[in-house]
């Protein structure tokens, strides 16, 4: 590991000194990490999560290694349509996380802020803008973004189109969930497929899309099964494992490879012991680098994250016979779209199914759409009798997460959960106290 750390430091220094001249080294690092996750998987986590990590490392390293094989997207871009053309979707949020593997997020964020980008913008977007604008990372031929789930999407892609000449398709996702909205988005999705036809010089095969949607339905069912099992069994993973799962559910959904992995995990989890600790339903992003959260949730027999809303943000069966309509409905009904009561309802559904002991929402710096409703979700969870903790920090920029504060809040909350077992009255009192301090 010492060697890996040295390499990371070296790439960081090189990039900061001469952005644009270190890309080959960054790419080599991704490829080496791909090999490492295959040959020497991380110890202490379950086989399923090892395989998931290896799959995600391969996905990114292979795509970046072949510049004509991918388009940039955001996490909600319809990868199913893009996949029909044999292309991968590399989401800018995930790429930012990968760049932070070289601890470059601070350099990129400062770079973006120094050009005038707002310091209060989401750090994922700032990292990405800095990475591209500084010239450290090469650009692809084409990109796509949805307006879901935040304002940053359109603006980041438009900025990079102007600055770096990467053309993009913008998919405007309406707020309301009704027929006119679906029709409006269907037309845009069809136009997007037509644009890909023009760009790739390949005809669009609707049957491929139908097949992807059939696999997607099956994957979602299987994943829900896995979540139920994960709430019963101790299945060691890390904070980052949930981010990998979110990546898979958004960028590889509809592929047989990813469905096979979920099926493997369902089988594999049967080999693990019963879990009798506290089950946590996680809301929004996970700061994978954060020491205190790592110490409590990385392979911990007392506390296990059993699911997250960022992984299961769409829940209903899709109609493969009308694939564009199915995709439009999926995007419009995503829990990040529409009102917060829609989100609260879907989180409530997840909680009903998985029966967590507690909910933790991580309010990521700059994410207004998520943070802005956190207090409403807390009320909903309280109505359901589920204690909820709100943590503030940053999913990627270490400088915006304060360990002392996170530690105090988290430990007080966990103490409260533990003491709740002694008696209901105490639990209520603690919850009342918690409401005041969190």
């Amino acid at each position, binding site marked *: 590991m010492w060697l890996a750390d040295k390499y990371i430091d070296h790439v960081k220094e090189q990039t900061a000194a001469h952005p644009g001249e270190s890309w080959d080294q960054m790419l080599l690092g991704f490829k080496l990490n791909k090999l490492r996750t295959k040959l020497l998987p991380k110890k202490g986590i379950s086989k399923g999560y090892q395989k998931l990590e290896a799959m995600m490392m391969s996905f990114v390293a292979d795509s970046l290694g072949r510049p004509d094989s991918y388009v940039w997207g955001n996490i909600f871009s319809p990868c199913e349509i893009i996949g029909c053309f044999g292309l991968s979707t590399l989401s800018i949020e995930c790429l930012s996380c990968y760049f932070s593997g070289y601890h470059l997020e601070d350099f990129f964020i400062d770079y973006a802020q120094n050009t005038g980008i*707002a310091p209060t913008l989401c750090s994922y977007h700032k990292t990405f803008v800095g990475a591209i604008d500084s010239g450290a990372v090469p650009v692809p031929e084409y990109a796509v973004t949805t307006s879901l789930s935040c304002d940053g999407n359109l*603006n980041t892609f438009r900025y990079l189109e102007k600055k770096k000449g990467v053309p993009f398709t913008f998919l405007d996702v309406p*707020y309301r969930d009704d027929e*006119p909205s679906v029709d409006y988005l269907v037309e845009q999705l069809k136009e997007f497929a037509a644009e890909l036809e023009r760009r790739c010089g390949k005809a669009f095969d609707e049957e491929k899309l139908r097949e992807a949607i059939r696999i997607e339905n099956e994957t979602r069912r299987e994943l829900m099964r896995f979540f139920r099992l994960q709430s019963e069994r101790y299945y060691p993973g890390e904070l980052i494992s949930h981010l990998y799962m979110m990546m898979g559910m958004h960028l590889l959904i509809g592929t047989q490879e990813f469905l096979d992995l979920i099926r493997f995990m369902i089988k594999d989890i049967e080999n693990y012991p019963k879990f009798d600790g506290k089950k946590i339903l996680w809301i929004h992003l996970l700061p994978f680098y954060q020491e205190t959260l790592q110490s409590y949730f990385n392979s911990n027999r007392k506390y296990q994250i059993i699911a997250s809303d960022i992984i299961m943000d769409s829940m209903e069966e899709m109609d493969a016979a009308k694939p564009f309509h199915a995709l439009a409905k999926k995007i419009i009904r995503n829990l990040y779209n529409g009102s917060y009561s829609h989100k609260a309802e879907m989180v409530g559904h997840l909680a009903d199914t998985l029966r967590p002991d507690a909910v933790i929402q991580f309010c990521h710096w700059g994410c*207004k759409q998520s943070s*802005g409703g956190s207090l409403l979700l807390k009320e909903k969870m309280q109505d359901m009798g589920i204690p909820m903790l709100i943590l503030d920090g940053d999913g990627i920029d270490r400088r915006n997460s*304060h360990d*002392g504060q996170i530690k105090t809040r988290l430990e007080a909350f966990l103490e409260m959960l533990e003491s709740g077992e002694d008696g209901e009255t105490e639990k209520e009192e603690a919850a009342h106290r918690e409401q005041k301090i969190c």
Partner: protein
Amino acid sequence: MLGYICKYAPVEVFEAMGVQMERIEPDVTNFNQAEIRMHPNICSFAKGVLEAVMDGAYEGVILTTCCDSIRRLYDVLREEFPDKFIYMLDTPRITKDAGITLYEQRIRAMIREYEEFSGKSFDEEKFCGYLKEIEEGQQYAVKENAVNIGIIGARANDSIKKILAERGANIAFDLTCTGLGRKILADEKNVMAGYARGLLSQFPCMRMEQAANRDELIRRCAGSVDGIIYHTVQFCDNYAYEYAWLKDWLDRPMLLLETDYTRQSGGQVRTRIEAFLEALTPETRRPDIQRKGDGTMYVMGIDSGSTSTNAVIMDQDRKIKAFSVVRTGAKSGVSADRVLHEVLEKAGLAREDISWIVSTGYGRVSIEFADENVTEISCHGKGAHYFNPKIRTILDIGGQDSKAIRLNENGEVKDFVMNDKCAAGTGRFLEMIARTLEVSLDELGAIALTSKEKIEITSMCSVFAESEVISLIASNKEKADIADGVCHAIANKASGLLRRVGLEPDFMMTGGVAKNPGVVRAVEEKIGAKLYICNEPEIVGATGAAVYALEKYRSR
């Protein structure tokens, strides 16, 4: 009465039904309600609207899906006021036919819901008649013999315009969503579709797909003005993208001005705007009155900062006769009187011997004996140029803010950025840390130079950084190493500011923190260049003010 906030809101639909419509322009002193009901990191405008609606007598509010913060504002208002007409109008970002069709449907659905809510009814013919009667709104224009300013960016409240008017500047255009006249199309054959088309074809805001078209209009408008104020709202990030893009190619001086919709930030907004106007019009100001000296002519500059109040007396040959630095007390006026007395004594002069006094700094307007006031940004420019004409970039770290200023070869300000939103990267921050480390402020810089181990202070917020320092003390780290880490944290902030104005050498550092060798070394390392520091870095602003006074006297 219904409140609304967005230029895309179909205001006329309601007005034609006899409903009074009011655009909500929050003017609040705090976000007490918003802090309870929303997260603190939400756009200040949205928080302000929440406060206004909680206080106001609106029967409802028409919101549009303009941004993430407003979407969440809707959720909170719905929850708070279940009996009011809190409506979220889904507004397309695409202005092609598909968008217009959808918007028409949305407006019709809204009308139905409002009819049900209010018992009023909507008459399309009456609506069409109403549209025809609407006259075009106020138009701005370029004026001769005035400084012409254009405003671009996020919605701006009237305080900016008031300050501009007070300083005699003309607003030649206002392209923010609150400054443009509405675009109303009255199409008799297809009233609602025409109306929706008109609304969506207004000058696009940053949420719209076709916002790329903004560039062309901005380019054309900008050509006619002397300078541009680019306005953003705190925690609204959309417009900063455009600022970052425009500043690469727009050939006009541009001030990035962030406001937070509270009255508290008024002083800072004023300093920025005034400094910008001063930079645009260095030669237009003329004195009215002068006093006579007794042979030699003397002027005075006085800089009322948050930490110290400094005064400089200069003679007609630009020589400094005397200077004085006193600690600013609770009342800036009292400290100013003290420094006046002290500096006169040092110079052996009486008040009557001083021909002209220019005040600067945060307390500049409270100094009654000054003949005029000039912002500390312009004064630091002049002062730096006085001490070393080669200086092109100044880093000024004072007690409560830090700034980077770019100068031209005449010492005139060409660009500046300020950090005054938080204590991080300021003198106050150093004081706080020195207290925590139990060393004096002077020692802090000196011991930093003896550091052996590199410690990184990662927190950007001064409060967090303080507790990070406490943790480091708890883990037995050496004071010298912690002090060095803190100096580097300040240097990181400072280098960000310097980069934003262009990093043109030579560099100078001013303000009290320039006396801290630890910070100076860290900044030099960070930018890879030497900092010029004059013997008394605290008096650069006051010296600049004195130079202003001298120029004023000479231009009689």
